[in-house]
């Protein structure tokens, strides 16, 4: 607890934490001191000098920057004295002498701190009659960001962000004095995954985003706050639209999640919403070709085909995959639809790329993201967060840099956080169990790592480092981690609202509200509201696809799911879907999967519907509508409701908000959750459960025992390499495909191998390499990657124009044969 001290600001006595910067202390008490360079999330530099104030000191009154002066007892501050006002007006005049007055064509015009502060504090006119400083007008500093050095006021917000926050010091001041300019390094673009943040925090229009340039004026934009859907952190964002087009996402400072920052995927990944490729009308397949049709005809067809399959084979002949890209309300509707209308327990929001649903939904004690700030040690045995969850990457980085947490990173390859790690352990895919046994044993080299982890509180971020890795490893890691002092676990899965979907019971093993499906008492309570729920054994996504392939299942309902792209083993996915008698897909786009469907129904996307989502901490937040969906698209729940009516088992949902009320009634962990509670008003969302008493599912992963672990270790087959298959921030997922600014940034297919292996195989950087798995044989360019261990190859998952390798551990790698001329 910081001591409070009394200071006087403009004659008013206020109580503020000792040492708090005067600019912040004053603002928190209603006195705004103008500023450009100061940003509450970055270190103060006192460069722009805009926040000059007069402060009385024992040695007389001094004019000094309030962004560099800590409050101390008895301090007397004058923010509007004549001297202060003259100094501030003087600074603005200085800033404007070289600033082009091209506000009418500047993206920032209308929301520009320089404009606003000139109006509020500036001189009425300039006395500068000389020639202004000139630079080449905007130069691209990356694929996404343009820099206009004439507009730049050299506040160092962007350069500090790149260095301090993102850890990508790729922009820096060059030259000096009046020639100072922000620049990239020669031949090295500002290719940071976080570059767009600099556009948002630029206090002038010097940095602009290619996705937004000249698209709108701020006063034409409507704005709602929402929760980002690109990963499971649920960053707070402002969604802005003009007419009916979503034009921009900006980060909103939510202390619990993103603290204002967004990765570029999240910032620019709005383009898919307005994509021309969006589905606008229902499609039915006639003679192998999709035809547009009416909702009535499409729904009739769905009801008829589903109805007859259910009648003939029972509800358990139908599987449901999806829900992770939906809201909680939509996912709940999907679960209820599958279990009560169709009469099937075969449903899964994960795509065989995740972890045990009970683990994700129930492992406890669960960490909150904010706990990282107070952690003594962080164990990160999970995917490369820089690639899979930019905001979580920034939070871990921040926790290490500012909070002093010691970081242990365990991964088959280099990760974005290696440079901040106290210990980094690299292992071969398949050998993670053995490594865990060694780590838990703490002998030899592992002693120091275990020592680092023996100081609590420990926060463990645990997930599946790659798609060839056994999901059980993450559970074993969590079991180990929970034995560490004062430990909490943050289970990591990536896809959008997957935690919400699991909480809504879209998993073979779960019922809504984190209830185990085999909990008879809970089942009875749910049946009291829902009516009868089938009791047959439930299949997960892989089980559904395999069941379809062999004819055990006949029909498939896809809700925003693209198994052919997203299930690691694309062959299994394709085989299952092609064998199905009937497939109906509810989606935003035609995808590699639903091309194979019989009926495709157009759904509303993010920004077109209201609802709630739940992040990996269990934090429930609201998503809001700002535009209407294209054509005849509808909300998932409404489509499912329509089908249920035609199947004579109406779900009879009145609205998404009504569904939320029903969730609160039937899902124990969600009791009390309402939209009102979550309305965006400087709120951080609400974390469920509120206490363990309300959390019905407590999942205890098994503690790591050496024998069991060693038994689970896997080796690639003789002569083969172990495959590390992992996602990249930008890939060929359907939302990325339809976000044109980003799709081109996917790194592309390649096979990374250790230089020694490359040497042995006679492969040089860039050479084509034959990679053969059980499912496929593809040629990929080689990348020499000394962060891998020998005997391991890394292939980025789901890259454009690249067939799937499947997810088997073993791949055979050979130098590509010369193509004869």
């Amino acid at each position, binding site marked *: 607890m910081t001591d409070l001290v009394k200071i006087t600001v403009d004659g008013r006595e206020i109580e503020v934490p000792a040492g708090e910067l005067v600019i912040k202390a004053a603002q928190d008490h209603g006195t705004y001191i103008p500023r450009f360079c100061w940003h509450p999330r970055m270190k103060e530099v006192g460069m722009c000098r805009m926040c*000059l104030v007069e402060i009385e000191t024992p040695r007389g009154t001094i004019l000094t920057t309030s962004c560099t002066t800590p409050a101390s007892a008895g301090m007397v501050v004058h923010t509007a004295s004549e001297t202060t006002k003259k*100094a501030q007006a003087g600074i603005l005049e200085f800033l404007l*002498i070289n600033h082009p007055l091209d506000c009418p064509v500047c993206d920032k015009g209308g929301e520009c701190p320089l404009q606003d502060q000139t109006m509020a504090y500036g001189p009425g006119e300039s006395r500068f009659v000389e020639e202004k400083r000139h630079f080449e007008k905007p130069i691209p500093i990356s694929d996404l960001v343009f820099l206009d050095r004439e507009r730049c006021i050299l506040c160092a917000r962007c350069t500090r962000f790149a260095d301090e926050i993102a850890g990508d010091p790729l922009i820096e001041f060059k030259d*000096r*004095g*009046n020639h100072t300019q922000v620049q990239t390094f020669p031949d090295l673009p500002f290719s940071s995954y976080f570059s767009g943040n600099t556009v948002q925090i630029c206090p002038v229009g010097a940095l602009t985003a290619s996705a937004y340039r000249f698209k709108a004026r701020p006063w034409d934009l409507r704005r709602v706050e929402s929760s980002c859907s690109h990963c499971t952190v649920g960053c707070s964002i402002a969604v802005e639209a003009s007419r009916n087009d979503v034009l921009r996402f900006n980060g909103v400072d939510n202390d619990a999640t993103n603290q204002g920052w967004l990765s570029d995927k999240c910032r620019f990944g709005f383009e898919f919403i307005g994509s021309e490729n969006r589905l606008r009308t229902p499609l039915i397949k006639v003679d192998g070709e999709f035809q547009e049709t009416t909702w009535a005809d499409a729904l009739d067809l769905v009801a008829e085909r589903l109805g007859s399959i259910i009648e003939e084979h029972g509800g358990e002949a139908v599987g449901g995959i999806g829900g992770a890209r939906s809201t909680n309300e939509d996912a709940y509707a999907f679960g209820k639809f599958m279990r009560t209308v169709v009469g099937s327990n075969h449903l899964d929001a994960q795509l065989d790329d995740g972890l045990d649903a009970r683990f994700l939904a129930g492992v406890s004690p669960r960490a909150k993201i904010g706990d990282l700030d107070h952690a003594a040690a962080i164990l990160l045995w999970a995917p490369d967060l820089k690639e899979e969850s930019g905001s979580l990457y920034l939070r871990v980085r921040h926790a290490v840099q500012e909070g002093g947490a010691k970081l242990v990173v365990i991964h088959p390859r280099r990760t974005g956080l290696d440079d901040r790690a106290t210990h980094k352990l690299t292992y071969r895919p398949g050998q993670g169990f053995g490594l865990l046994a060694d780590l838990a044993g703490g002998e030899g080299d592992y002693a120091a790592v275990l020592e680092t982890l023996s100081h609590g509180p420990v926060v463990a971020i645990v997930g599946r480092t790659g798609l060839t890795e056994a999901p059980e490893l993450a559970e074993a890691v969590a079991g180990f981690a929970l034995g560490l002092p004062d430990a909490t676990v943050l289970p990591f899965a990536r896809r959008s609202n997957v935690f919400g979907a699991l909480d809504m019971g879209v998993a073979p093993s779960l019922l809504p509200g984190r209830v185990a499906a085999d909990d008879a008492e809970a089942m009875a309570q749910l049946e009291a509201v829902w009516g009868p729920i089938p009791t047959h054994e439930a299949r997960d996504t892989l089980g559904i696809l395999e069941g379809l392939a062999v004819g055990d299942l006949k029909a498939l309902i896809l809700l925003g799911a693209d198994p052919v792209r997203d299930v690691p083993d694309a062959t299994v996915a394709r085989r299952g879907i092609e064998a199905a008698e009937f497939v109906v897909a509810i989606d935003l786009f035609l995808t590699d999967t639903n091309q194979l469907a019989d009926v495709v129904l157009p759904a509303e996307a993010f920004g077109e519907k209201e609802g709630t989502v739940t992040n990996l901490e269990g934090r429930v937040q609201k998503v809001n509508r700002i535009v209407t969906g294209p054509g005849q698209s509808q909300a998932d729940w409404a489509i499912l409701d329509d089908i249920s009516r035609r199947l004579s088992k109406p779900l009879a949902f009145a609205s998404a908000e009504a569904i939320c009320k029903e969730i609160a009634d039937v899902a124990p962990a969600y009791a009390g959750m309402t939209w009102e509670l979550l309305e965006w008003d400087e709120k951080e969302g609400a974390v469920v459960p509120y206490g363990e008493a309300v959390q019905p599912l407590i999942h205890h992963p098994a503690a790591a025992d050496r024998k069991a672990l060693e038994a689970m270790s896997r080796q690639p087959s003789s002569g083969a390499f172990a495959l590390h298959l992992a996602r990249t921030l930008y890939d060929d997922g359907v939302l990325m495909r339809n976000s044109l600014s980003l799709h081109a940034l996917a790194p592309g297919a390649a096979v990374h191998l250790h230089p020694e292996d490359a040497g042995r195989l006679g492969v040089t950087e860039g050479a084509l390499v034959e990679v053969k798995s059980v499912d496929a044989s593809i040629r990929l360019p080689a990348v020499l990657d000394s962060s891998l261990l020998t005997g391991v190859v890394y292939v980025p998952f789901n890259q454009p124009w690249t067939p799937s390798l499947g997810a088997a551990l073993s791949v055979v790698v050979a130098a590509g044969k010369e193509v004869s001329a």
Partner: protein
Amino acid sequence: MSHAQVLFARMAEHPTDSHTLVMYEATGGYVQARRAMDMTRDEIVELVKTSGLLGRGGAAFSAGLKWSFLAPARPAYLVVNGDESEPGTFKDRQLLERDPHQMIEGIIIASVANEVREAFIYIRGEYPKPARRVQQAIDEAYAAGYLGKGIFGTDYDLDVTVHLGGGAYICGEETALINSLEGKRGEPRLKPPYFPAAKGLYMMPTIVNNVETVSNLPHIFEMGTDDYRALGHATDTGTFLFSVSGHVKEPGNYELPHGITWRELIFDVAGGMREDRGLKAWIPGGASAPWFVPEHHLDLEITKEATGAAGSMLGSGAVVVMDETTCVVKAAERVVRFFSHESCGQCTPCREGTTWLEMILRRIEAGSGRPIDAELLLDVSDNISPGLTWPPKQTTICPLGPSAVSPITSVAKYFADELRQHIVQGGCPLD
């Protein structure tokens, strides 16, 4: 009239080999450093305080007092500031080039006093020969066991590293120098909190002393504080190195006691005005200092106090003399241009203000001055240095911005008519 020579004595007597270890030791060198090895930190700090030694880099702050501020954290560093860049200042060059061992002995004393095991000498990049001489001297000292592991046979280790600057004036400012030494942009740090004695090089306690300051130390030890004090003036002890340049017959470096008058300095020591022209003005302490004029200042005693009371400073001891043929607008423009060119660019008033002032002065000199410009010059200056007081206040991080204001206020104060003539005539009346 002859004055006692202390820092320049060896090079005056042995002009060809004063820089060698052999000559240095033959003339009593490294005896005082050996003595210092047996003294405690407190004893040395006290001795230097008593000597009255003031920093010779420009700020004239008590060297002993500065040392006493050193924070307790270790390692502590010593940085010797040889980034001599103030226009008109060239005395450190002579010390570095002609008597490097004198400085190295001072470094040893200062290091022992401040529990320093690693010292750096930051020499401006335009001084390749002085840097070579210093490196040779360091190599000799290492070979003799005066630097390195266990110096003088004690268990005290001391390493000294020479670092060359990249050509920026601002790196003479101690916190910018530290940034530069760390490999960062040469930009001054915020003070508070980054006072070097508390958080300096690599955020550790650091003493930054000028070359001349450090070179005084062996002599303070040798003569004792009483004799050392007696060399100079009651408040400004020891000798002081003046770099006299401009329109005098004998420009050069002079080692003098404080307390003589400007008339003596310019007309006796420096031989009077070139071609016996009239004296128009002089800069008493480097480009940052407000100017003096003969009508008011010629018989003023040269002391820190008297110069300060008259609205200027002795600074780094650079005296730039201007004769009656000098156009003050052009002279002011040249000085302002220097500061504008050397502004690091991090803070707004200095980056934008100095450039603007330079543009206005150039326009006036070119004949396009407007009546409003005289007032504009002062108001722009006021926005860099509020109140245009002496010592200057500043809206900036470091004093570079306010330094650029000195020639403007000087012209406004003493040469308002000449400025007005430029504007009214549409050009320079002296052309």
